[in-house]
């Protein structure tokens, strides 16, 4: 990246050769108890009008902080400690908070990450859109109301004038994000900053939202600054890419060039670990057996393990370890007064899981996949149907029998921040199942904890630490160690890698595959992410609205999807059709 100022400031050149946004050597720090911690350390980027630029990085890389610094939305303890943010030649970091208010909204729009918390629940949608329109002086009075309806129509809400009076809770996540995009674009800003605009949404919704955003910004000639952790999404949606790592830009330039030919070791790791890419690799590895060249990056799957998985698949012809037959779960949701609404979360589904294999339940939010996991774990009771585990009907289990079942079937939950007791040290957390089942004496438990920590590749000294000191990936490894403590037969992994960064996710998936091969574990893998399924599952059940729409081996589902819904899901994987470099 050239930093010579004379090149870019040339009054005679046409308008589009002048960058719209130019960030130069930006530094941002946060005041904490331990002094000033720098979060962004000398970032440069250039964005021209009409372009889309994506900042890619894992959590803590400083990508969001960079975007927040542009429009002065940093948290109260953060401040710009150096560098410039030039927007049409004006340095935004030098503006007063009054002046930046005029820039925000009218010149630079912002679409926040979480559509659930960024609309005020006590005001109607119409009121909130109108407020934004008035605040940015787009229109006033009656005009403003008209404009509100127009914005909502543009946002893709068909019956906009009816929808005005509704409240955020009456909108789905996707619709809310459309509204937020509408608000962000309502003043026709020159630049739109979209901070992970679709990370909280299902893939199919994500696709329509991103298509919609692309159409709107193309029509208005708006530049877009995308913040994302998803390399595939960046590749698909942005011409320009900036890869950030620990507050620094490690690689930047045309996105296709970077993804096809990553140069910096970090970018290479990131590209290698991107599930949509790796999923192709597994396929290749299975076709031409073991290709030693492929097992390169630490984040990517080991070819050796894949071969073993194939072997396992071959000799798993015996009876099902878990057999689910026609199960249903009906929830009664209390309405006002004494009325109840009925919700059929799981509707008559059946599947079987063979010993030593991985079966993935895939579906979007509300498809009932997590409910199936809870039903199997005996955390919820069945409404009808039966689940047998190793020949025993699990619904009939009581007392000691149930305890025995719990010993053999262990869960790992999604949220690595919530599933560990913050008051328990890691050692006590892992030892808890041993204590609960009265396994061994204190000395043996101590040894077992050490052994388990080693199995999940954590140093033995971790036992004295507390969850708050660990990263998400490390916590998830502790959760896996706890689940393995009793030497179970089955692990139920409920979105176990969904909250993790790509590289960490790859690492955990590798770990899980290794453990499966080593200990002969059976996995029930619940996820919304098809790309991950490709990496680890032998069989797939695609769920929609409480039913299984398609169930087959992973290869069949990916190569030859029969149902339209499965095809839509596969289509919607961001960057799924993009050819990455190696």
């Amino acid at each position, binding site marked *: *990246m*050239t930093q010579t100022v004379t*090149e*870019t400031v040339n009054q005679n050149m046409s308008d589009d050769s002048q*960058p719209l946004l*130019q960030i130069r050597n930006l530094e941002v720090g946060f005041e904490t*108890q331990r002094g000033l911690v720098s979060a962004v350390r000398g970032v440069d980027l*250039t964005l021209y009008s009409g372009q889309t630029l994506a900042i890619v990085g894992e959590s803590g890389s400083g990508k969001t902080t960079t975007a927040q610094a542009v429009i002065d939305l940093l948290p109260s303890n953060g401040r710009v400690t150096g560098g410039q943010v030039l927007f049409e030649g004006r340095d935004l970091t030098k503006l007063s908070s009054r002046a930046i208010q005029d820039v925000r909204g009218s010149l630079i729009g912002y679409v926040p990450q979480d559509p659930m918390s960024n609309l005020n629940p006590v005001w109607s949608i119409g009121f909130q859109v109108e407020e934004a329109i008035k605040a940015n002086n787009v229109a006033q009075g009656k005009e403003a109301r008209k404009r509100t309806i127009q914005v909502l129509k543009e946002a893709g809400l068909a019956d906009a004038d009816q929808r005005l009076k509704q409240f955020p809770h009456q909108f789905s996540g996707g619709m809310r994000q459309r509204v937020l995009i509408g608000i962000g674009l309502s003043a026709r800003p020159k630049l739109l900053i979209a901070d992970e605009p679709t990370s909280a949404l299902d893939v199919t919704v994500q696709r329509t939202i991103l298509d919609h955003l692309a159409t709107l910004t193309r029509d208005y000639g708006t530049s877009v600054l995308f913040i994302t952790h998803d390399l595939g999404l960046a590749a698909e949606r942005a*011409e320009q890419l900036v890869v950030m*790592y*620990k507050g*620094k*830009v*490690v*690689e*930047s*330039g*045309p996105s*296709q*060039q970077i993804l*096809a030919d990553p*140069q*910096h*070791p*970090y970018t290479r*790791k990131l590209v290698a670990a991107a599930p949509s890419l790796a999923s192709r690799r597994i396929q290749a590895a299975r076709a031409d057996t073991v290709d030693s060249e492929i097992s390169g990056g*630490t*984040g990517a799957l080991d070819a050796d393990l894949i071969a073993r998985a194939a072997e396992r698949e071959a000799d798993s012809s015996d009876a099902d370890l878990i057999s689910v037959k026609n199960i249903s779960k009906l929830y009664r949701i209390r309405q006002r007064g004494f009325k109840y609404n009925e919700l059929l979360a799981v509707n008559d589904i059946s599947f079987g899981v063979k010993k030593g294999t991985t079966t993935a339940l895939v579906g979007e939010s509300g498809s009932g996949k997590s409910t199936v996991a809870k039903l199997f*774990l005996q*955390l919820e009771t069945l409404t009808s149907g039966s689940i047998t585990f190793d020949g025993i009907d699990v619904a009939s289990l009581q007392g000691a029998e149930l305890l025995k079942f719990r*010993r053999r079937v*262990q*869960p790992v*939950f999604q*949220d690595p921040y*919530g*599933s*560990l*007791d*913050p*008051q*328990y*040290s890691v050692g006590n957390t892992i030892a*808890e*199942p041993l204590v*609960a089942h009265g396994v061994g004496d204190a000395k043996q438990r101590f040894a077992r904890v050490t052994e388990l920590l080693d199995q999940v590749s954590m*140093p033995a*000294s*971790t036992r004295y*630490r*507390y969850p*708050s*000191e*660990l990263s998400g990936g*490390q916590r998830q490894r502790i*959760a896996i160690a*706890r689940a393995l403590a009793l030497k179970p037969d089955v692990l139920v992994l409920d979105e176990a890698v969904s909250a993790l960064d790509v*590289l*960490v996710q790859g690492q955990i998936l590798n770990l899980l595959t290794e453990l499966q091969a080593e200990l002969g574990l059976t996995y029930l893998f619940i996820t919304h992410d098809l790309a991950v399924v490709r990496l680890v599952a032998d069989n797939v059940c695609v769920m929609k609205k409480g039913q299984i729409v398609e169930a087959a081996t992973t290869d069949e589902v990916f190569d030859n999807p029969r149902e339209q819904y499965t095809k839509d899901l596969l289509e919607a994987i961001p960057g799924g059709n993009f050819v990455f*470099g190696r």
Partner: protein
Amino acid sequence: MPSNNMGPRTRVGQAHYIAPLEETPVDEIDKLDESVKARSTWADAWDSMRRRPMFWISSVLILIILLVAAFPQLFSPFSPTFCELKFSNQGPQAGHPLGFTRQGCDVYARIIFGAQASVTVGVLATLLVAVFGGIVGALAGFYGGVFDAIVSRVGDIFFAIPTVLGAIVLMSVLPVRSAATVALVLALFAWPQIARIMRGAVLTARNSDYVMASIALGVTKFKILVRHVIPNAIAPVIAVATVSLGIFIVAEATLSFLGVGLPPTVMSWGNDIGQARTSLRTEPQVLLFPSAALSITVLSFLMLGDVVSDALDPKERARR
């Protein structure tokens, strides 16, 4: 992929840039930094508390007050019951820095010896409330159902009665009036507050993923309550209990002042303030000093409560 297939010409400032590796070394993925010392939530809370001067000021004051309450004779050479009318309403003099009451008793000695009753009532009532309210609230929140409904409604009834008013009525009919009965009566009307806070905190902790994980591990419900839920719900109770200790001391003084608290034979700040009322115009210091002792004690506990609740709330801590 051929590299010429990359769209329009590269513009100024957008050429492919690769950071020098020396400046951006790549760490091992998700490695644990073993150089950082291990620490628990409680250690963190302690760390945040000891950085605040308010914590040290209030702790030192409370320590002094507790010492005075436990060993008053160490702090005053004179007996508070040794009164001579010849000193009646006299000002400060050598050995008697705060002067004398109307009865000719040493004000300083009375304050020192009065601490015991006030602190005893405060500590006793707080303990009763924290233990009873805490247990009831925890059980109600954790098990829910009918028990919860009954406890909540009964709590509401007590909640609706002002503590001091209820205590006045009850104390005036009780045959025995001592520090223990005053504390018991105060606790009787004050437990619902702690119970409510505990119940709310338990409800939050009960629905957390780690409780779900423990159930799936096969840990029994009661053990989950004791080992996971209560430790995670106790913080707000500790904070509120510290504050209410101060409030109980005020309540005791109020009751004694009104003549329904501790009997006049017991030395207490409330009694002294009540008696000083009569000579307020001529000898204000007789009223002033016990009141100041009361205020400082209560303030110390309120300050400590404030610091403790901040320290136990990670969000509040992050803001400092």
